C-alpha cells in the first residue's frame, strides 16, 4: 500500500496483506509423530500445492475486519430507506435473549421433556402470528420469505390435489415481487401475469379473463408494491374464491397492517410473513431468516412437519400429519431468529403493534408530503408504509433515478430501492419505517431537494456520484456482462 497523506484509502484484501512466514499465533511444536500425507492420504484427495492462506498478525486481522465493518452502510449507522425491504431497527435486547446459552447451546435433538422452554416460545410465536394475522395455523419452518412463498404454494397445490382438482396456474399481478413467479415455477406451476391499471391497482377485467378452473392461486401483495392499499381487495377475494382458487397474500408489507387489519378476515387463505421486516429481526446478508406461513383450517393438514403441539402443560413435536408436504427445513427452522421474533412480540404487545403500523404509515405520508413538490409524477396516495416517486419530470439534464440514488450516498443516506416496482417509470421506492425521527425525515427530504437542484445546476456532479465513498461508482454493466466470480492471487 503506498504511503500517502490521503486517508481515503480502499482497504486491501487480507490476502494482499500477507507476508510469508508471518503468523498470528505461535503454535507449540507437535507432540505426536509426524505422518507424511504421501503415505497416509490417497493421491486423488491430496492438495497439489499447499493451501494459500493469508499470513498475517492478529492486530492486522482485527484492524482489517474492523475497518471493513466501518465501511458498511447499515441500519446501525445510517438511515436506510430501502423500499419494500423494511430496514427497521433491530432491538438489541432481541439479540441478547437469543444469545442466552439456554437457547444458543440447545441441541435440536434434545428430547422435548428437556426443551420445554424453547418449544413454548415456538408455540407462542405461532399463536401470536395466528392472532395477529387471523389465520388458523402457522408453520415456522421456512427460512425466508421466498421459501415461505414456495412452501405456501406447495401447501396449496397439495390441497387442490387432495380434492382431485388439477389446477396448474398461479395468477400474479405485474407489480409483484419477482420471487412470486419464481416460487410458482419452482413449485411446478405456471405463473400467469395479471395486468395493473396505470394507478397500480389490479385490472379486474384482466383478472376475470384469466381466472378459471385451472387457477390454483392468486398471489397478491397487500399493501401493494406501490405502497398503496388495494381498495378492490374484497371484490378480488370474491372473484378468486368463486373460481375455486385460493387467495395467497405476500406478507412482505405487513409492517403497515399488523394491529390494524387481519389478512385472514379479508378472506386470505395462505400468507407468508417476513419476520426480518415486520418483526424486527436482522436482514442477515442472505440468512438466517424466517418466513412463517399461515393458512386457513382446510389447508392445515398439508403444513410441513414437525409441528409444535401443546398437550396439557407439555409441549412436544408432532410428526403425525400424513398429508403434510414434508420438511422444508431441518428441525424447527431458524430458531434463533424466531426467539428474536418472540422477544419483539412481547416488547410490542397488541397495542404496540397497532402504534407501530400507524407510525410507519405516518412516516411514509409525512415524507410523501415533503417530496410531493419535487416529484410531479408521484403515484396517487394515500400511501401505507412506503412512498414511490418517479424521477421523470423531477431531475433535469438527463439525470436518472440511478444517479440520484448514488448521490444520496454522499449525503449520508443509504439509497432507496430504485427501478421497482417496474410499472412506475424511473421509480424510487422509499420506506422510512416507524423508527425514524421527524428530524431524520426532514434531513432526507432536504437531501432529495438538494439533488433535484443539483440536477439543474451541476448535473455532472450527480451523474458521476458518489464522490465521498471508499470506491466510486461501480461498473454494474461490466460486472454483469463479464463477471469475475473468484479472486485470484497473482
Amino acid at each position, binding site marked *: 500500500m503506498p504511503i500517502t497523506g490521503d486517508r481515503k484509502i480502499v482497504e486491501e484484501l487480507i490476502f494482499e496483506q500477507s507476508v510469508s512466514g508471518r503468523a498470528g499465533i505461535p503454535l507449540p511444536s507437535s507432540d505426536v509423530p509426524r505422518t507424511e500425507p504421501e503415505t497416509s492420504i490417497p493421491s486423488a484427495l491430496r492438495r497439489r500445492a499447499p493451501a494459500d492462506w493469508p499470513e498475517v498478525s492478529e492486530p492486522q486481522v482485527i484492524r482489517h475486519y474492523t475497518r471493513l465493518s466501518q465501511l458498511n452502510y447499515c441500519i446501525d449507522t445510517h438511515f436506510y430507506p430501502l423500499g419494500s425491504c423494511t430496514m427497521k431497527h433491530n432491538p438489541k435486547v432481541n439479540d441478547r435473549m437469543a444469545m442466552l446459552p439456554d437457547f444458543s447451546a440447545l441441541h435440536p435433538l434434545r428430547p422435548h421433556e428437556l426443551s420445554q422452554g424453547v418449544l413454548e416460545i415456538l408455540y407462542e410465536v405461532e399463536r401470536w402470528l395466528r392472532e395477529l394475522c387471523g389465520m388458523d395455523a402457522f408453520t415456522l419452518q421456512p427460512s425466508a420469505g421466498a421459501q415461505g412463498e414456495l412452501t405456501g404454494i406447495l401447501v396449496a397445490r397439495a390441497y387442490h390435489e387432495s380434492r382431485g382438482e388439477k389446477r396448474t396456474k398461479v395468477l400474479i399481478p405485474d407489480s409483484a415481487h*419477482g420471487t412470486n413467479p419464481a416460487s410458482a415455477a419452482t413449485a411446478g406451476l405456471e405463473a400467469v*401475469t395479471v395486468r395493473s391499471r*396505470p394507478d397500480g391497482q389490479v385490472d379486474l377485467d384482466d383478472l376475470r379473463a384469466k381466472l378459471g378452473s385451472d387457477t390454483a392461486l392468486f398471489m397478491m401483495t397487500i399493501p401493494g408494491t406501490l405502497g398503496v392499499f388495494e381498495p378492490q381487495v374484497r371484490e378480488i377475494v370474491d372473484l378468486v374464491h368463486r373460481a375455486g382458487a385460493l387467495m395467497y397474500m405476500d406478507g412482505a408489507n405487513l409492517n403497515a397492517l399488523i394491529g390494524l387489519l387481519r389478512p385472514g378476515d379479508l378472506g386470505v387463505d395462505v400468507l407468508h410473513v417476513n419476520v426480518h421486516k415486520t418483526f424486527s429481526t436482522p436482514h442477515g446478508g442472505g440468512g438466517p431468516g424466517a418466513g412463517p406461513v399461515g393458512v386457513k383450517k382446510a389447508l392445515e393438514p398439508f403444513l410441513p412437519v414437525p409441528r409444535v403441539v401443546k398437550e396439557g402443560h407439555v409441549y412436544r413435536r408432532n410428526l403425525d400429519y400424513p398429508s403434510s408436504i414434508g420438511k422444508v427445513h431441518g428441525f424447527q427452522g431458524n430458531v434463533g431468529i424466531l426467539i428474536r421474533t418472540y422477544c419483539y412480540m412481547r416488547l410490542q404487545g397488541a397495542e404496540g403493534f397497532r402504534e407501530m403500523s400507524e407510525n410507519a404509515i405516518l412516516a411514509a405520508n409525512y415524507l410523501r408530503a415533503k417530496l410531493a413538490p419535487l416529484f410531479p409524477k408521484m403515484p396517487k396516495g394515500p400511501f401505507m408504509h412506503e412512498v414511490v416517486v418517479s424521477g421523470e419530470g423531477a431531475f433535469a439534464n438527463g439525470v436518472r433515478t440511478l444517479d440520484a440514488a448514488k448521490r444520496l450516498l454522499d449525503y449520508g443516506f443509504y439509497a432507496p430501492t430504485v*427501478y*421497482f416496482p*417496474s*410499472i*412506475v*417509470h424511473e421509480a424510487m421506492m422509499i420506506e422510512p419505517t416507524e423508527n425514524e425521527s421527524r428530524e431524520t425525515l426532514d434531513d432526507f427530504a432536504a437531501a432529495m431537494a438538494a439533488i433535484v437542484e443539483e440536477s439543474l445546476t451541476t448535473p455532472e456532479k450527480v451523474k458521476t456520484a458518489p464522490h465521498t465513498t471508499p470506491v466510486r461508482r461501480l461498473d*454494474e*454493466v461490466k460486472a*454483469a*456482462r463479464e463477471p469475475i466470480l473468484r479472486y485470484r492471487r497473482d
Partner: protein
Amino acid sequence: MNPNDLRFTKTHEWIAADGTVGISDHAQHEITDVVFVDPPKEGKTFKAEEPACAVESVKAAFDIYAPVAGVVTAANKDVAANPALVNQSPYEKGWLYKLTMTSPSDRDKLMTHAQYQEFLKTATH
C-alpha cells in the same frame, strides 16, 4: 432494417415482414444496458402475446412477448454472446429471433412505426 418497414406492439417488440423480432429503440433505452439475453429454442411454438424470450438489464429482467403466433426458426446467437448489441443496434444486429408466422396477416394488425411513435407519447409505461 428501416423502422418504417417494421410493425410494433404495445409491449415494445418489433416484427419484420420476414418474421424477425426485436425490441424497439425506445425499449432498449428504457431498460438500459442489456447484460443477458435468453433467446427461445428453435422449433418452439408461441401464441401471440406469450413470453418468448427473456432480456436482463442491470435494472431488471424483462419478458419479451411474441408479437404474433408462430414457430421459432432461428435465434440470434450474436446477442446471446454480446447482449450490448440490443442497445447498440436494436433494429439490425440486435434482433432476437425469427418466427414463421402462423398467419402473416396478424402482423398487419400491429402498429406502424408512426403509430408506435404516437402511442409512446400517450403511454404511461
